[in-house]
């Protein structure tokens, strides 16, 4: 299990290739890529702040819990921090399991956590200024499905 925070753009496809390689028992790999929506130029630029050493440790604990809960073979998480341009990947989650149900559910679970509870602080830069944003009601509802 590897958790990475990076302030540089990353390529989800290369992560998928590496994650799928040399697996023996794994029949199922589910992945999720979250992209900063471009919305034809109207989108706000996104800025994500993390607390290095705290944020990645917190994510790693939840990933470890997911491994146990869903009997995963492996988890890979990459999360962008800093200023993120429209169209760029914000988050990548991959889960490996024997069968697809566990891989899907674990990926879904981890994304709900990352989008609503993970220790990030999110700022949107709009033409009329910047504002800090909170998780949406839907994010909260999604995350509560797993409690």
């Amino acid at each position, binding site marked *: 299990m590897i958790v990475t925070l990076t302030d540089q753009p990353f390529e989800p496809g290369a992560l998928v290739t590496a994650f799928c390689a040399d697996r023996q028992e794994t029949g199922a790999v589910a992945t999720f890529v979250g992209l900063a929506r471009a919305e034809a130029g109207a989108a706000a630029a996104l800025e994500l702040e993390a607390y290095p050493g705290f944020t990645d440790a917190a994510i790693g604990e939840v990933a470890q819990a997911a491994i146990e809960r869903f009997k995963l073979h492996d988890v890979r998480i990459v999360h962008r921090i800093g200023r993120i341009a429209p169209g760029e990947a914000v988050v990548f989650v991959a889960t490996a399991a024997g069968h697809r149900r566990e891989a899907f559910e674990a990926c879904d679970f981890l994304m709900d956590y990352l*989008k609503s509870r993970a220790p990030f602080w*999110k700022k949107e830069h709009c033409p009329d200024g910047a504002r800090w944003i*909170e998780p949406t009601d839907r994010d909260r509802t999604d995350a509560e499905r797993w409690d």
Partner: protein
Amino acid sequence: MARVLLFGRLADQAGWRERSIDAGDLATLRSALAADDAVLGEALAGPGVQVAVDKALVRGEAILAAGTEVAFLPPMSGG
């Protein structure tokens, strides 16, 4: 000296992200911060603001050894 870190809107409000402050416990540290900037002092005590000492969340009081890192974390938004 404790190393104090502010995140998210707290850093924007204070106008700084990191500062070293002489304080032997969390209450003394909070008082020093509030004496310097009353608005910040209130924000740090506001709803949903958590405190991490050496990267572990704490509730209530904590003794601060030299070089301890104290982070004030506003409500987390997720990624």
